[in-house]
Protein backbone atom coordinates (compact mmCIF):
# COMPACT_ATOMS: atom_id res chain seq x y z
CA UNK A 1 0.00 0.00 0.00
CA UNK A 2 1.30 3.43 -0.94
CA UNK A 3 1.56 6.01 1.82
CA UNK A 4 -1.64 8.11 1.61
CA UNK A 5 -0.04 11.36 2.66
CA UNK A 6 2.25 11.39 -0.35
CA UNK A 7 -0.48 13.05 -2.44
CA UNK A 8 -3.40 15.36 -1.71
CA UNK A 9 -5.84 13.04 -3.43
CA UNK A 10 -5.14 10.08 -1.22
CA UNK A 11 -4.78 12.13 1.94
CA UNK A 12 -8.58 12.28 1.97
CA UNK A 13 -8.42 8.72 3.30
CA UNK A 14 -6.74 9.95 6.44
CA UNK A 15 -9.07 12.95 6.69
CA UNK A 16 -12.05 10.62 6.39
CA UNK A 17 -10.49 8.30 8.96
CA UNK A 18 -10.06 11.05 11.57
CA UNK A 19 -13.58 12.27 10.82
CA UNK A 20 -14.80 8.68 11.36
CA UNK A 21 -16.35 8.64 7.91
CA UNK A 22 -14.32 5.77 6.48
CA UNK A 23 -15.96 2.41 5.92
CA UNK A 24 -14.82 -0.47 8.21
CA UNK A 25 -12.80 -2.28 5.52
CA UNK A 26 -10.73 0.77 4.64
CA UNK A 27 -10.42 1.70 8.33
CA UNK A 28 -8.87 -1.67 9.11
CA UNK A 29 -6.53 -1.41 6.14
CA UNK A 30 -5.42 2.09 7.11
CA UNK A 31 -4.91 1.19 10.76
CA UNK A 32 -2.68 -1.70 9.75
CA UNK A 33 -0.72 0.68 7.56
CA UNK A 34 -0.35 3.29 10.31
CA UNK A 35 1.12 0.68 12.61
CA UNK A 36 4.16 0.51 10.36
CA UNK A 37 4.18 4.02 8.81
CA UNK A 38 5.45 6.72 11.17
CA UNK A 39 4.52 9.47 8.72
CA UNK A 40 0.88 8.43 8.59
CA UNK A 41 0.76 7.89 12.35
CA UNK A 42 2.02 11.44 12.81
CA UNK A 43 -0.55 12.74 10.33
CA UNK A 44 -3.31 10.96 12.24
CA UNK A 45 -2.15 12.34 15.61
CA UNK A 46 -1.97 15.89 14.26
CA UNK A 47 -5.34 15.66 12.54
CA UNK A 48 -7.04 14.19 15.60
CA UNK A 49 -5.66 17.06 17.66
CA UNK A 50 -7.11 19.58 15.17
CA UNK A 51 -10.41 17.71 15.28
CA UNK A 52 -10.56 17.91 19.07
CA UNK A 53 -9.64 21.59 19.05
CA UNK A 54 -12.42 22.35 16.56
CA UNK A 55 -14.88 20.30 18.61
CA UNK A 56 -14.25 22.62 21.54
CA UNK A 57 -15.36 25.66 19.55
CA UNK A 58 -19.04 26.06 20.29
CA UNK A 59 -21.08 28.67 18.51
CA UNK A 60 -23.47 30.84 20.54
CA UNK A 61 -27.18 30.09 20.45
CA UNK A 62 -29.60 31.86 18.15
CA UNK A 63 -31.40 34.81 19.71
CA UNK A 64 -35.04 34.07 20.62
CA UNK A 65 -36.51 36.77 18.38
CA UNK A 66 -34.77 35.53 15.20
CA UNK A 67 -38.00 34.20 13.62
CA UNK A 68 -40.02 37.26 14.60
CA UNK A 69 -37.48 39.60 12.97
CA UNK A 70 -37.41 37.46 9.83
CA UNK A 71 -41.21 37.39 9.50
CA UNK A 72 -41.28 41.15 10.04
CA UNK A 73 -38.89 41.58 7.11
CA UNK A 74 -40.95 39.23 4.95
CA UNK A 75 -44.13 41.15 5.78
CA UNK A 76 -42.41 44.48 5.11
CA UNK A 77 -41.31 43.22 1.69
CA UNK A 78 -44.80 41.98 0.89
CA UNK A 79 -46.24 45.37 1.80
CA UNK A 80 -43.63 47.32 -0.18
CA UNK A 81 -44.65 49.16 -3.42
CA UNK A 82 -44.46 47.12 -6.62
CA UNK A 83 -41.32 48.90 -7.91
CA UNK A 84 -39.41 48.06 -4.72
CA UNK A 85 -40.52 44.44 -4.91
CA UNK A 86 -39.34 44.35 -8.50
CA UNK A 87 -35.74 44.96 -7.45
CA UNK A 88 -36.00 42.28 -4.76
CA UNK A 89 -37.11 39.70 -7.30
CA UNK A 90 -34.52 36.92 -7.73
CA UNK A 91 -32.37 37.15 -10.84
CA UNK A 92 -33.83 33.87 -12.08
CA UNK A 93 -37.21 35.58 -12.46
CA UNK A 94 -35.67 38.12 -14.83
CA UNK A 95 -34.06 35.57 -17.13
CA UNK A 96 -37.02 35.13 -19.52
CA UNK A 97 -37.23 38.91 -19.95
CA UNK A 98 -33.59 39.34 -20.99
CA UNK A 99 -33.99 38.18 -24.66
CA UNK A 100 -37.11 40.35 -25.01
CA UNK A 101 -35.29 43.36 -23.61
CA UNK A 102 -32.35 42.73 -25.97
CA UNK A 103 -34.69 42.46 -28.98
CA UNK A 104 -36.45 45.70 -27.99
CA UNK A 105 -33.11 47.46 -27.65
CA UNK A 106 -32.08 46.31 -31.14
CA UNK A 107 -35.34 47.59 -32.65
CA UNK A 108 -34.87 51.00 -31.03
CA UNK A 109 -31.21 51.12 -32.14
CA UNK A 110 -32.19 50.22 -35.70
CA UNK A 111 -34.85 52.96 -35.77
CA UNK A 112 -32.37 55.56 -34.52
CA UNK A 113 -29.73 54.61 -37.11
CA UNK A 114 -32.30 54.56 -39.93
CA UNK A 115 -33.59 58.04 -39.08
CA UNK A 116 -30.49 60.09 -38.31
CA UNK A 117 -32.24 63.32 -39.47
CA UNK A 118 -34.42 63.25 -36.40
CA UNK A 119 -31.35 63.81 -34.33
CA UNK A 120 -29.73 66.44 -36.59
CA UNK A 121 -30.17 69.65 -34.71
CA UNK A 122 -28.32 72.81 -35.94
CA UNK A 123 -25.13 73.55 -34.07
CA UNK A 124 -25.92 77.23 -33.76
CA UNK A 125 -26.85 78.49 -30.32
CA UNK A 126 -30.59 79.05 -29.73
CA UNK A 127 -30.08 82.78 -29.23
CA UNK A 128 -29.15 83.38 -32.90
CA UNK A 129 -31.49 80.83 -34.40
CA UNK A 130 -34.07 82.54 -36.66
CA UNK A 131 -37.34 80.81 -37.16
CA UNK A 132 -39.03 80.57 -40.56
CA UNK A 133 -41.91 82.81 -39.44
CA UNK A 134 -39.54 85.57 -38.32
CA UNK A 135 -37.72 85.55 -41.71
CA UNK A 136 -40.99 85.82 -43.58
CA UNK A 137 -42.05 88.76 -41.44
CA UNK A 138 -38.75 90.56 -42.11
CA UNK A 139 -39.03 89.89 -45.83
CA UNK A 140 -42.58 91.18 -45.87
CA UNK A 141 -41.55 94.33 -43.99
CA UNK A 142 -38.75 95.01 -46.50
CA UNK A 143 -41.19 94.54 -49.39
CA UNK A 144 -43.59 96.98 -47.75
CA UNK A 145 -40.77 99.49 -47.27
CA UNK A 146 -39.72 99.17 -50.90
CA UNK A 147 -43.34 99.65 -52.01
CA UNK A 148 -43.62 102.78 -49.89
CA UNK A 149 -40.39 104.13 -51.42
CA UNK A 150 -41.71 103.47 -54.91
CA UNK A 151 -45.00 105.20 -54.04
CA UNK A 152 -43.10 108.05 -52.49
CA UNK A 153 -40.84 108.48 -55.55
CA UNK A 154 -43.77 108.25 -57.99
CA UNK A 155 -45.70 110.86 -55.96
CA UNK A 156 -42.69 113.19 -56.02
CA UNK A 157 -42.26 112.85 -59.78
CA UNK A 158 -46.01 113.47 -60.34
CA UNK A 159 -45.97 116.66 -58.32
CA UNK A 160 -42.90 118.00 -60.17
CA UNK A 161 -44.52 117.31 -63.50
CA UNK A 162 -47.68 119.14 -62.46
CA UNK A 163 -45.64 122.15 -61.46
Amino acid sequence: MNCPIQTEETAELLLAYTARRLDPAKTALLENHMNVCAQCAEFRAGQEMVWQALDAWEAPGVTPDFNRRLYQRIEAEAAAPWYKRLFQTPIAMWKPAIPLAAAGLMVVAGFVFDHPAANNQPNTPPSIRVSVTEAEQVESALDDLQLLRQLDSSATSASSESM
Partner: protein
Amino acid sequence: MAEGVNTSMGASAALDYDAQLMLRVKDGDGPSFTELLEKHRSPVVHFLFRMVQDHAVSEELAQEVFLRVYRSRNTYEPTAKFTTWLFRIATHLALNWLRDGKNERGQERLDDSTGEGPVREVADRRVTVEQKMLYEVRLEEVRRAISALPEKQRAAVLMHKYEEMEYSAIARALDCSESAVKSLLFRAYETLRARLAHMA
Protein backbone atom coordinates in the same frame (compact mmCIF):
# COMPACT_ATOMS: atom_id res chain seq x y z
CA MET B 1 -20.19 32.98 -7.71
CA ALA B 2 -23.73 32.68 -8.93
CA GLU B 3 -26.41 34.29 -6.86
CA GLY B 4 -27.96 32.17 -4.17
CA VAL B 5 -31.26 32.06 -6.00
CA ASN B 6 -29.71 30.04 -8.78
CA THR B 7 -31.25 26.70 -7.99
CA SER B 8 -30.24 24.81 -11.12
CA MET B 9 -27.25 22.90 -9.87
CA GLY B 10 -27.00 20.32 -12.59
CA ALA B 11 -26.86 16.98 -10.89
CA SER B 12 -30.19 15.49 -10.09
CA ALA B 13 -30.81 14.92 -6.44
CA ALA B 14 -33.26 12.71 -4.70
CA LEU B 15 -36.25 14.65 -3.49
CA ASP B 16 -35.29 14.94 0.16
CA TYR B 17 -37.80 15.96 2.80
CA ASP B 18 -36.49 19.52 2.87
CA ALA B 19 -36.99 19.82 -0.87
CA GLN B 20 -40.53 18.56 -0.46
CA LEU B 21 -41.12 21.20 2.19
CA MET B 22 -39.72 23.86 -0.11
CA LEU B 23 -42.06 22.73 -2.89
CA ARG B 24 -44.95 23.15 -0.44
CA VAL B 25 -43.68 26.66 0.33
CA LYS B 26 -43.73 27.26 -3.42
CA ASP B 27 -47.41 26.26 -3.35
CA GLY B 28 -48.06 28.85 -0.65
CA ASP B 29 -47.77 26.70 2.47
CA GLY B 30 -46.40 29.01 5.18
CA PRO B 31 -45.99 26.40 7.95
CA SER B 32 -43.58 24.44 5.72
CA PHE B 33 -41.32 27.49 5.60
CA THR B 34 -41.47 27.70 9.39
CA GLU B 35 -40.50 24.03 9.58
CA LEU B 36 -37.51 24.60 7.30
CA LEU B 37 -36.53 27.65 9.33
CA GLU B 38 -36.71 25.78 12.65
CA LYS B 39 -34.67 22.91 11.27
CA HIS B 40 -31.88 24.86 9.58
CA ARG B 41 -31.72 28.12 11.52
CA SER B 42 -29.10 27.00 14.04
CA PRO B 43 -26.72 25.26 11.58
CA VAL B 44 -26.82 28.30 9.28
CA VAL B 45 -26.23 30.80 12.10
CA HIS B 46 -23.43 28.66 13.55
CA PHE B 47 -21.75 28.28 10.17
CA LEU B 48 -21.96 32.02 9.56
CA PHE B 49 -20.74 32.80 13.08
CA ARG B 50 -17.64 30.67 12.54
CA MET B 51 -17.10 32.31 9.14
CA VAL B 52 -17.41 35.96 10.25
CA GLN B 53 -16.77 35.49 13.99
CA ASP B 54 -19.34 38.08 14.97
CA HIS B 55 -22.63 36.99 16.49
CA ALA B 56 -24.73 39.99 15.41
CA VAL B 57 -23.40 39.86 11.85
CA SER B 58 -23.92 36.10 11.63
CA GLU B 59 -27.60 36.52 12.60
CA GLU B 60 -28.04 39.36 10.15
CA LEU B 61 -26.55 37.28 7.34
CA ALA B 62 -28.65 34.27 8.35
CA GLN B 63 -31.76 36.45 8.12
CA GLU B 64 -30.71 37.40 4.59
CA VAL B 65 -30.19 33.71 3.75
CA PHE B 66 -33.74 32.77 4.75
CA LEU B 67 -35.15 35.88 3.16
CA ARG B 68 -33.56 34.85 -0.14
CA VAL B 69 -34.89 31.34 0.27
CA TYR B 70 -38.37 32.77 0.76
CA ARG B 71 -38.02 35.17 -2.18
CA SER B 72 -36.89 32.31 -4.42
CA ARG B 73 -39.80 30.04 -3.55
CA ASN B 74 -41.56 30.66 -6.88
CA THR B 75 -38.52 29.69 -8.95
CA TYR B 76 -37.34 26.84 -6.72
CA GLU B 77 -36.57 23.58 -8.50
CA PRO B 78 -35.31 20.63 -6.43
CA THR B 79 -32.30 19.86 -8.60
CA ALA B 80 -29.93 19.53 -5.62
CA LYS B 81 -30.19 18.82 -1.92
CA PHE B 82 -31.90 21.67 -0.12
CA THR B 83 -29.06 22.01 2.39
CA THR B 84 -26.51 22.32 -0.42
CA TRP B 85 -28.50 25.18 -1.89
CA LEU B 86 -28.95 26.75 1.56
CA PHE B 87 -25.24 26.63 2.35
CA ARG B 88 -24.41 27.90 -1.11
CA ILE B 89 -26.42 31.04 -0.32
CA ALA B 90 -24.88 31.29 3.15
CA THR B 91 -21.33 30.86 1.83
CA HIS B 92 -21.94 33.40 -0.91
CA LEU B 93 -23.16 36.00 1.60
CA ALA B 94 -20.35 35.30 4.07
CA LEU B 95 -17.63 35.52 1.41
CA ASN B 96 -19.13 38.76 0.10
CA TRP B 97 -19.22 40.22 3.58
CA LEU B 98 -15.61 39.23 4.21
CA ARG B 99 -14.47 40.55 0.82
CA ASP B 100 -16.30 43.83 1.28
CA GLY B 101 -13.99 44.50 4.21
CA LYS B 102 -16.87 44.70 6.61
CA ASN B 103 -15.00 42.40 8.94
CA GLU B 104 -12.63 45.04 10.27
CA ARG B 105 -14.75 45.55 13.35
CA GLY B 106 -14.90 41.81 13.86
CA GLN B 107 -11.14 41.52 13.63
CA GLU B 108 -10.72 44.32 16.14
CA ARG B 109 -13.05 42.48 18.42
CA LEU B 110 -11.07 39.32 17.88
CA ASP B 111 -7.93 41.11 18.98
CA ASP B 112 -9.68 42.55 21.97
CA SER B 113 -9.23 40.26 24.93
CA THR B 114 -11.75 42.03 27.13
CA GLY B 115 -14.30 39.37 26.41
CA GLU B 116 -16.78 41.65 24.65
CA GLY B 117 -19.09 39.85 22.26
CA PRO B 118 -21.22 36.76 22.44
CA VAL B 119 -20.89 34.68 25.54
CA ARG B 120 -19.69 31.21 24.71
CA GLU B 121 -21.39 28.43 26.49
CA VAL B 122 -18.94 26.71 28.77
CA ALA B 123 -21.15 26.65 31.80
CA ASP B 124 -22.48 23.58 33.51
CA ARG B 125 -19.34 21.61 33.02
CA ARG B 126 -18.28 21.92 36.62
CA VAL B 127 -14.86 23.14 35.61
CA THR B 128 -12.41 25.02 37.77
CA VAL B 129 -11.48 28.63 37.06
CA GLU B 130 -8.07 27.49 35.85
CA GLN B 131 -9.61 24.96 33.47
CA LYS B 132 -12.02 27.57 32.21
CA MET B 133 -9.19 30.01 31.55
CA LEU B 134 -7.23 27.33 29.75
CA TYR B 135 -10.29 26.52 27.69
CA GLU B 136 -10.72 30.19 26.75
CA VAL B 137 -7.07 30.47 25.71
CA ARG B 138 -7.30 27.36 23.56
CA LEU B 139 -10.57 28.53 22.08
CA GLU B 140 -9.02 31.85 21.17
CA GLU B 141 -6.16 30.05 19.43
CA VAL B 142 -8.61 27.94 17.45
CA ARG B 143 -10.58 31.02 16.43
CA ARG B 144 -7.43 32.81 15.35
CA ALA B 145 -6.21 29.78 13.41
CA ILE B 146 -9.54 29.48 11.57
CA SER B 147 -9.72 33.23 10.99
CA ALA B 148 -6.23 33.21 9.46
CA LEU B 149 -7.23 30.67 6.80
CA PRO B 150 -8.04 31.96 3.31
CA GLU B 151 -11.83 32.46 3.00
CA LYS B 152 -12.56 29.48 0.77
CA GLN B 153 -10.42 27.14 2.87
CA ARG B 154 -12.23 28.40 5.95
CA ALA B 155 -15.65 27.76 4.41
CA ALA B 156 -14.59 24.30 3.23
CA VAL B 157 -13.29 23.29 6.67
CA LEU B 158 -16.41 24.56 8.45
CA MET B 159 -18.75 22.74 6.09
CA HIS B 160 -16.63 19.57 6.27
CA LYS B 161 -16.10 19.56 10.02
CA TYR B 162 -19.27 21.01 11.51
CA GLU B 163 -21.91 20.36 8.87
CA GLU B 164 -20.42 17.00 7.84
CA MET B 165 -21.08 17.80 4.22
CA GLU B 166 -19.82 15.57 1.40
CA TYR B 167 -17.09 16.82 -0.91
CA SER B 168 -19.61 17.10 -3.74
CA ALA B 169 -21.95 19.27 -1.65
CA ILE B 170 -19.08 21.52 -0.53
CA ALA B 171 -17.98 21.79 -4.16
CA ARG B 172 -21.45 22.98 -5.16
CA ALA B 173 -21.62 25.43 -2.29
CA LEU B 174 -18.23 26.87 -3.19
CA ASP B 175 -18.83 26.69 -6.94
CA CYS B 176 -15.72 24.62 -7.63
CA SER B 177 -14.76 21.05 -8.47
CA GLU B 178 -14.54 18.19 -5.99
CA SER B 179 -10.81 17.89 -6.53
CA ALA B 180 -10.47 21.60 -5.75
CA VAL B 181 -12.36 21.02 -2.49
CA LYS B 182 -10.04 18.14 -1.56
CA SER B 183 -7.09 20.38 -2.26
CA LEU B 184 -8.59 23.23 -0.20
CA LEU B 185 -9.22 20.90 2.73
CA PHE B 186 -5.81 19.29 2.53
CA ARG B 187 -4.06 22.66 2.62
CA ALA B 188 -6.37 24.04 5.32
CA TYR B 189 -5.90 21.09 7.67
CA GLU B 190 -2.17 21.14 7.00
CA THR B 191 -2.08 24.78 8.12
CA LEU B 192 -4.26 24.05 11.16
CA ARG B 193 -2.07 21.10 12.18
CA ALA B 194 0.98 23.37 12.06
CA ARG B 195 -0.69 26.26 13.89
CA LEU B 196 -2.31 24.16 16.59
CA ALA B 197 0.49 21.61 17.02
CA HIS B 198 1.53 23.10 20.36
CA MET B 199 -1.92 22.35 21.78
CA ALA B 200 -1.32 18.61 21.66
